């Protein structure tokens, strides 16, 4: 046994025999899978760039951009509620009972209105269920809609512009990425707000998670 073993080692001319090659290959595949897994996991749940097809092709570019309709005209609860609210069909009909009534899509909208059937929009900016975001507070503070939603005025199909991850939220709350007018020196932080020194907004977990 020992003799044949030594003859085996003498016979091998290179370190890269078929076995070694196989292991190396397996190693590379494993590394690739692991790398891929971590890369994927890093982005799991981050839907940046998500722009699904909506049941009726509504263009924000046309409404908010070209026609200059203010965001709050349709998303009327954004300054009153946690939820910005997607407009009910009757808000569409405010204009579209006279505007472009011959368009096939407007006919679809009118049908929804007449039959009292809601339109089922696909949610684009979808925070996890354990995160509570309050639109009203951000609007009241003067955070522009574009800060989180991107330049909606140029979007034909609405898409998720920002990562909307917790780190991204906290960067702003901690004053790293906050809009200029919200930046303030720590000594100006109101005593009653419970805001950490150096931050511009509360960063305790319960602010969002409850």
């Amino acid at each position, binding site marked *: 046994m020992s003799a044949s073993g030594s003859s085996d080692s003498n016979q091998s001319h290179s370190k890269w025999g078929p076995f070694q090659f196989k292991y190396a290959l397996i190693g590379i595949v494993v590394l690739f899978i692991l790398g891929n897994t971590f890369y994927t996991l890093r982005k799991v749940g981050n839907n940046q760039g998500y722009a699904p097809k909506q049941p009726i092709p509504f263009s924000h570019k046309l409404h908010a951009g070209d026609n200059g309709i203010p965001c709050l005209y349709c998303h009327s*609860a954004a300054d*009153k509620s946690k*939820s910005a609210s997607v407009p009910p069909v*009757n808000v569409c009909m405010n204009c579209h009972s006279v505007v472009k009534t011959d368009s096939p899509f407007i006919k679809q909208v009118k049908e929804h209105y007449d039959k009292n059937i809601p339109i089922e929009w696909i949610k684009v900016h979808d925070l996890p269920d354990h995160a509570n975001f309050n639109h009203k507070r951000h609007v009241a503070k003067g955070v522009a809609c574009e800060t989180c939603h991107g330049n909606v005025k140029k979007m034909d199909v609405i898409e998720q512009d920002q990562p909307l991850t917790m780190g991204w939220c906290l960067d702003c709350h901690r004053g790293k990425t906050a809009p200029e007018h919200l930046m303030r020196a720590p000594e100006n932080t109101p*005593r009653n707000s*419970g805001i950490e020194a150096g931050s511009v907004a509360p960063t*305790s977990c319960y602010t969002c*998670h409850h």
Partner: protein
Amino acid sequence: MDNTENEKKYWRSIEEWKSLSEEFNATTKDQEKPGEFLSSPLKEDTGRDGHSRREFLKLMGASFAMMSASACTRRPIEKIIPFARKPEEITAGVANWYASTCRECSASCGVLVKTRDGRPLKFEGQPTHPDSQGGLCARGQASVLNVYDPDRLKAPALVKRQGQSQEQSWGQIDEAMTQVLSQSKSGGNRVRILTGELASPSALALIENFLKGFSNAQHITYEVLASEEIAQAAELTYGKRVVPHYRFDQADYILSFGADFLGNWLNPVEFSKAFSKKKKLGKISGNGSKISSRFVAFESLLTLTGSNADERYSIPSGEEYKVALAFAHYFILEKKWSAYQSNPIFQDTLAGYSIKNVSEKLGLPQAQMTKIAEELWAKRGKSLVLGGGHQTKGDHGLYLELAVNLLNTVLENEGVTVDGSVSWLPHFSSLQRLKDLIAEMKAGQVDVLIIHQLNPVFSFPKTLGFEDALKKVAKIYYLTDRMDETAKVVDYALALSHATEAWGDASSRVGVWSIQQPTISPMYSTRSLEECLLVWGKGLGEKSGFFSHSSWHDALQWNWKQNLGSAFDWEDILRNGSVKTGPATANGAPARNFSATAMKVIPATPSWNLNQFRLVIYPKIATYDGRHANNGWLQELPDPVTKITWDNYFMISDQDSKNMNLREGDKIRLSLLSSARDEIELPVHIQPGLKEKTCGVALGYGRTSAGRVGNGVGVQALHLATLEQRTLSLSALPIKFEKIPGHAELACTQRHNSMEGRPIIKETSLKKYQKNPKAGNEHHEHLTTIWPEHKYHGYRWGMAIDLNSCTGCSACVIGCQSENNIPVVGKSFVITNREMHWLRIDRYYSGRTDQPEVVHQPMLCQHCENAPCETVCPVLATLHDHEGLNQQIYNRCVGTRYCANNCPYKVRRFNWFTFTDVVEPLNLAFNPDVTVRTRGVMEKCTFCVQRIQDAKDHAKDRGTPVQDGELKTACQQSCPTDAIVFGNLNDPQSRVSQISKDPRGYHVLEELNVRPSITYLTKIRNTEHESTTSSHS
């Protein structure tokens, strides 16, 4: 520092008491119990959601493989579905509140219904209601779950008495009904409407108007648990059938014989409010009061009310009236204080009931009895004697009411604390009229019977013979919310709306009107009784009065206008919910004249047959008469006294259990002494506070057609009731029972923690408190900490709980459950200690087993400054925030459970399974502001952080800090006795800061130096009873 109070030994169950007395460690015994080790979390068959351990591991493996294989993952597509036509008043994400009325029982408390996106989410007490004043009981809080009950009847059905239903439209029903009714009208046939105690004045007027058109029609009201004895006794003694209004706010001395007025007798919320106001001491009273009312109770079973008595005496069931007569004997015959002394009727009836005689026979301390009598006399005109309720149903209950009326008259309480000028309910239950109806039915004379909601097949005892009589009725229409026991034997089962789906009104007593507003359009094809009668009446050609209106809403509005006159302002009514039209009762009412001849009803020579076992059939706080059986919140609410969930059981005294060789959970077979019919088999629960030979069993269990939650829970015990001369008897029933093989595990929530001799509860007597406000609370720990102190710049939230006000009613437990999406886990998981309640109420006994003193202590997360849970969490899922809250972050939690193990208060709950995975549409009852937790996550009380955020949100809009009192936690809001105060401890002027500094304030487990944010206030008992003033040995 001598502190005898804290050496008082508390025990939580009979086993513990035994071990205390034997100086033997009870825990070793407890561990021998079967079922205690059921709780392997990975036992293969316990996975309710269908994944056993092996499967779980397989799935995990597979999902990791898939994750690495597929490069991109997209979260599931979610939809936003806005209204097609949005109602003006709804803003997405903002709650609308509607003032309405709770219709779960005839107390009819005012409620505010919180709705989001048009669905009711939470019931809260209506602060402007003259009686309930913002309180709401556990059943009222749980009412919202009934809206989303998956087992509701969804459309009217033709049943044809065979249990098989065939859905019909309301049009078909109306057509058939109109035909039947018009035949009855022209043919002079008998039409009968049978309802429970309807507290709705408009519905009663409508029924009256509806029946007017028929030559032979009647409305019969009956409920087994209604307080008919009070009305009967009032008729005999005062000549008028009235249930008076009891004025606890005027009473400094309360003597009760079995009346469970803090539990479920008449109007417990109103009574709790008024009763507790008289018990507030020190800073929590608002004026530093050092005077408390005194409450003495004589009762057979240990009720919630009895557990709050300053002095409580257990007596055998059925003997209550004798004790009441003993006091009357003392005043009238012995001391000759009353003008009645010369009346021969009293000489005759009272002669056999001297205090000496009664005390000797019932084993009561004679000196103490005399003392109580003297105290009562000293407080005459300011005392209140109560009797009756669910423990004293039967002829002896009627005697008791007569004796109580006599005592109130002799003590000059009549007209002061007992207001007989306003009746509690406009329409009384009448056994006689029900008996007449049954006789008619049996004779085949009833042509049309309309039953509203009562479920008589289940809720009437067999002895009445109602079910058999039903077979002889030509046509039966039954308005019901589910295919229950009765619905299976009728012709038509008509789907009934929930109170949140229909217009209505209620009158908690004459002179108080409250509106019932719908907050959601009917979820299914349902109607209310009023809507049905309106349609049918119109179908018969009625055109006047109610019937001139096109909808019940219009008719209701019209009726209010008719009755309220100038006080009518519809907008105002809808906004406030209730109107008080009656006379201002602050000045009292005229005293009614007592008719002495009424006393002749009482047997003049008392019989003392105390050797038989006597049974009391009583309703539990949560499940009442079984109408709420399909409500999981109520089934899992621990009974405030026994702390048992999901079951009824045979309660027996410690002494009897020894004599009969019975252990907790042993099974017995029980029947009446007179006949073996309706034998039932029950598990035994050994209950402290019972006199020998007194046994109890709860009714409302053993439903067979309640739905998926309520079916098969417990055993139907009501059929043991017997008919007596004047009443239906549910108590002092002579019984026999025998031990049978078998053992049942009772799902009791009190086993999993013990006081271990530490001063968790501090209490003292009123006298000691008056001398020294720190009495019982002298000893405090002054420990230093190695941790840096937390600094609070803004708010620092904290709570104070007054143990002297808390009655243990458990309304807060359900309020918390509703607010915080707390799941129901079911009986088997309660047995393995996996209930999820964030707030529990611990109940401790002290003293003798037959006459224990009881304390209730709400226990919830203490939000410690040096929280032991925070230091052991490996992933920082629980940590302190800048407002003093101990945060629990579900998405960070990995479920190590270190925190729960390190929590000295044991208030953390772990999701062993996805308990929140509920049947639709129960998911609609979830509060959208609170995360629904999943498996593997720890959770606990958050101090209702969503409410804090909401209050801060509103405060920021205003630009001012949150005002004191503006923010209430769910438990605080629901508390009928205002025992819980929440607020900002950083504001020295806030109520909670003030109360926390009260000399009575202490922290539980101070010696651990965890520095809780919750301050408890010592319990002060107005007694000189020896067990409170010295330690139990």
